């Protein structure tokens, strides 16, 4: 009996050992799939799940997937090991370090940049004119040692944004991607928690009939869509989700990580905290006469990307990004319209024009008490493919 017990124990130990080996092999294959997709995403077509034999021996097959998720590229690998299925999903982007340590790119409109108050610019700059002027605005003179701590080069036209990002944004704004499962607002309002894994199809929630989203926990592969204005209150917890609406308001003290797209305006109220990787994007079509604006209010912390673009750059009705006093942006800002910054950008900004609006007037290419500091951005920060057409080869965030 005792011998039998010992032999049985040995047998079970062998089974556990074999299972462990298989699981380790599956994890290795997952990692190999991710390595492959990071090195060459084009080995598979977009928006398709493709079975791929890793070593052409029929023993290591993985299911590879690639699609756009907002401004990011989403890659996914699935491995089936016996009855178990393992998945790995990630948002990918590009390294920002290679971008010549750029802090500010101001398109050449033949007007110099002027600074006043406690303005600090750290990092390399591309400006219309090499000399940065010191101005006296609102009773404040420039108090720093020098206006720019970095190299200054002459700028030309604003670099055009990566067309893939534009297409993806337009597709989301036009609701053309709503081909997966759709959740009506009545179903949505009955549920407190909506979590949809990236292993499933995208869940679209149509909130056109409602103005405010309250007390919800929404996470994962979800697109919230509204044809009208949408208010997201601080009682929500939203993670990895895409929100598309005509106009979006994030109420005071909202905390979350999401990508929001709008054709009209995005208003972020005071003391909000957007964790990495978040993105706010406004897009204006050629026919539109609206004044799309992203407003980041006081004491808000935003980690990610602010994008404002218009199809045709024009002096009248430009798109704009307003960063108010004590607001902090950790990441990148791109506007082919206006940037009004009175807070801090820890990262880089590409702008067509800087506009300072005060109680007494409007000043072009002026900065007052603003901070643009590239040195405070982590060297491990992964950005979106703003201008590049090369592959996304860095992991921005692992997803479930």
């Amino acid at each position, binding site marked *: 009996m005792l*011998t039998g017990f*010992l032999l049985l124990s040995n047998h079970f130990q062998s089974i556990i*050992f074999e299972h462990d080996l298989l699981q380790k092999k599956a994890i*290795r294959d997952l*990692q190999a799939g991710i*390595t*492959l997709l990071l090195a*060459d995403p084009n080995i598979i077509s977009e928006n398709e799940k493709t079975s791929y034999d890793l*070593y052409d021996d029929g023993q290591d097959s993985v299911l590879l997937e690639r699609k756009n998720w907002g401004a990011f590229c989403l890659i996914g690998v699935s491995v089936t090991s016996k009855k178990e299925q393992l998945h790995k999903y990630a948002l990918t982007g590009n390294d920002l370090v290679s971008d010549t340590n750029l802090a500010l790119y101001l398109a050449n409109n033949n007007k110099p940049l002027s600074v006043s108050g406690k303005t600090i610019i750290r990092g390399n700059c591309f400006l219309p004119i090499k000399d940065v002027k010191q101005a006296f605005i609102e009773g404040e003179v420039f108090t720093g040692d020098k206006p720019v701590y970095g190299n200054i080069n002459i700028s030309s036209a604003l670099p055009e944004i990566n067309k893939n990002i534009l297409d993806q944004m337009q597709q989301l704004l036009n609701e053309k991607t709503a081909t997966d499962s759709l959740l009506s607002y009545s179903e949505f309002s009955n549920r407190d928690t909506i979590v949809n894994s990236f292993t499933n199809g995208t869940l679209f929630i149509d909130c056109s009939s409602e103005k405010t989203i309250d007390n919800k926990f929404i996470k994962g592969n979800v697109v919230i869509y509204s044809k009208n204005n949408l208010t997201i209150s601080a009682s929500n917890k939203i993670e990895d989700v895409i929100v598309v609406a005509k106009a979006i308001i994030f109420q005071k003290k909202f905390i979350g990580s999401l990508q929001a797209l709008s054709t009209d305006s995005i208003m972020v109220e005071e003391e909000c905290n957007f964790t990495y990787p978040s993105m706010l994007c406004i897009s204006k079509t050629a026919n539109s006469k609206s004044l799309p604006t992203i407003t980041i209010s006081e004491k808000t912390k935003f980690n990610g990307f602010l994008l404002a673009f218009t199809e045709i750059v024009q002096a009248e009705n430009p798109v704009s990004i307003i960063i108010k006093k004590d607001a902090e942006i950790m990441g990148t800002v791109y506007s082919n319209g206006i940037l009004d910054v009175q807070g801090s950008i820890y990262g880089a900004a590409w702008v067509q024009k800087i506009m300072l609006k005060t109680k007494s007037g409007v000043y072009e290419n002026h900065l007052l008490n603003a901070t643009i500091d590239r040195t405070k951005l982590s060297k491990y920060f992964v950005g979106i493919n703003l201008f590049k057409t090369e592959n996304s080869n860095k992991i921005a965030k692992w997803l479930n």
Partner: protein
Amino acid sequence: MVKLKRKHKAFSLVESLVGMIIILITFSVGLMIFNEVMLSSNNRQRIHADMLIQKTLAETIDKNEFLDQSIATETYTIEKKVSPYKSEKNISVLEIKIFNSDKRLVANQKMLVVTQ
């Protein structure tokens, strides 16, 4: 002194000792068989080989040594082979094979590594 009224059935000292010795012998034999089974199985070797592969892999990546190599240890021979992966320029296949003293393959692992 209280005198027992009934006669109680029990083992004698010799019987108990013999029983204990039999249990001891059975247990010892069982343990020997278990030990024999454990040693004869490949699991032990494979666990060692797997650990050796992980160590070699970590060292290869850490030192950026993507070269074909053969390393002999006291009990195993590690064979490391790096070959190009399909048409990918930046990726290579790193294959690590572990052979025991009888030159029998104990463990084999393939993985993709970035070698740009």
